[in-house]
């Protein structure tokens, strides 16, 4: 059997994991399932794509790709700006929509509103950019053999490394910094958090900024290795939720582990049971884990 699915699965899993961190944080801190989170992935990818083009236009001449990669420094610069912009987009959506509904304290209304926001954001992307797929680069990359029949392109290798850096940075933020501890505190007990001196509104803002930025990173990974389409985030939404629930809602390492498992399961499904059952396999794994451990892999509570 060809082991390539392991590499493909882990790579897809890293993208899902980055997106799932935002889902799990929003769910545990704001207490609703945000179905618009997938749109942050797509908006982030389009933002990076547009900014890359803008930088190229401003520089005025072709910029050679870096080493073996398909892209040059403009994409790296655009990626950082796009992550900030996507964080701000998530924050803006909260100010315009979710914060008003939060005051009424009804989680179902928040979920429904996120469905609406998802539809609106996606349609807006389609309106601006059309549904024609776009690409960061059309260069064909030569994959590097990793042994055992597994191959990975230089782009994938670099992105995988960058994703790992982001996950580690995020882990350090959550475990070592005041804002990270405050986020964990609000997710566990918002009333006690405010008594201890945590400004809950500030924690909510941080949650949107971080979740949006990580979703953008996932979007850029998908964009570089696959393509950029308005539906790219929406298509990832179910795997994102599967990963967040699998890892245990509220657990950031859980979301990453869940993402890798979902990615691997989906990739393994293709050679084993055929591409048609790809999506179903992720959910079979999810159900199996939840039967054994209802709180998810790293979950502390129901």
């Amino acid at each position, binding site marked *: 059997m060809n082991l390539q699915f392991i590499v493909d699965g882990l790579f897809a899993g890293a993208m899902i994991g980055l997106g799932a961190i935002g889902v799990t944080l929003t769910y545990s801190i704001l207490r609703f399932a945000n179905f618009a989170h997938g749109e942050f992935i797509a908006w982030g990818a389009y933002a990076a794509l547009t900014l890359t083009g803008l930088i190229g236009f401003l520089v005025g001449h072709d910029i050679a790709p870096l080493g073996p990669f398909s892209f040059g420094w403009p994409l790296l610069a655009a990626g950082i700006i796009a992550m900030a912009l996507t964080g701000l987009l998530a924050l803006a959506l909260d100010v315009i929509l979710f914060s008003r509904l939060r005051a009424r304290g009804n989680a179902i209304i928040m979920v429904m509103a996120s469905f609406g926001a998802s539809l609106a954001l996606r349609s807006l992307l389609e309106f601006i950019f059309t549904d024609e797929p776009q690409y960061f680069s059309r260069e064909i990359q030569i994959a590097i053999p990793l042994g055992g029949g597994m191959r990975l392109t230089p782009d994938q290798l670099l992105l995988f490394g960058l994703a790992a850096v982001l996950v580690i940075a995020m882990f350090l933020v959550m475990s070592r910094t005041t804002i990270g501890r405050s986020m964990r505190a609000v997710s566990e007990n918002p*009333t006690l958090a405010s008594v201890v001196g945590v400004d809950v509104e500030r924690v909510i803002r941080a949650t949107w900024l971080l979740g949006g930025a990580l979703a953008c990173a996932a979007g850029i990974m998908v964009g570089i290795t696959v393509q950029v389409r308005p539906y790219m985030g929406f298509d990832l939404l179910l795997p994102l939720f599967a990963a967040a629930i699998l890892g245990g809602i509220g657990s950031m390492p859980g979301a990453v582990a869940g993402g890798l498992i979902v990615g691997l399961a989906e990739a393994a499904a293709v050679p084993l049971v055929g591409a048609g059952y790809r999506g179903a396999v992720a959910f079979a794994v999810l159900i199996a884990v939840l039967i054994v451990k209802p709180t998810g892999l790293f979950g502390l509570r129901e």
Partner: protein
Amino acid sequence: MLRVENLAAGYERGVPIVRGASIEVAPGEVVAILGPNGAGKSTLIRSIAGLVPKFSGRVMLDGLDISGLPAHQVVRHGLAFVPQTENVFGGMTVSDNFALAAAVMPTRERHARIAEMYAFFPGLEERRALLAGRLSGGERQMLAVARALMVRPKLLVLDEASAGLSPKMVGTVFEQLKAIRATGVTILLVEQNVRAALGLSDRAYVLAEGKNRHAGTAAELWNDTAIADLYFGGIAEREALA
């Protein structure tokens, strides 16, 4: 230190649970709020701490009107509140619980203050890497109190520190509170355990139907059989028989 003037408060507009309570706590004093179930004791102090909406009246802390401040600002002004239940972050380690509490202080003071709190509560130091949810009920209460003391509060407000603890643990917790009182911390506490509360306090208020009905020194209230019969289920008689 604390002056509550004619406070009305409750969770729902138009449904006040506290209906015109007025209390005062002088610096260095320990004051208890006693009263039957449903008298509004917890609502009163939760409202003082900024957790329950106030409808009218004022809360002054050291001359400053804190009536309109949200809970996370109240603690910054020196009023530290310990809720009755779920008063520690069970999913976080003891040391993370401390670090979070210390975060309202200037960065350079945090480290030394955390060390001071470990020195005052040595039982917690050996548990610092443990999730707070795995502590015993008594240890958890210590952690909750230590967390509140962390910020060097002008006033420590405790909601039923004895709730859910075994009689032996209640004794330990109140011994600890006596040690805290000896350091000069001003304390306001709500308590069901009248005997333990009056043993610790200088003065007490008796709250009924959202208003304070009686006030006096701990000894006066303890010896007033009429009040004991009315509000504490004749506790003095039962104590005498025991």
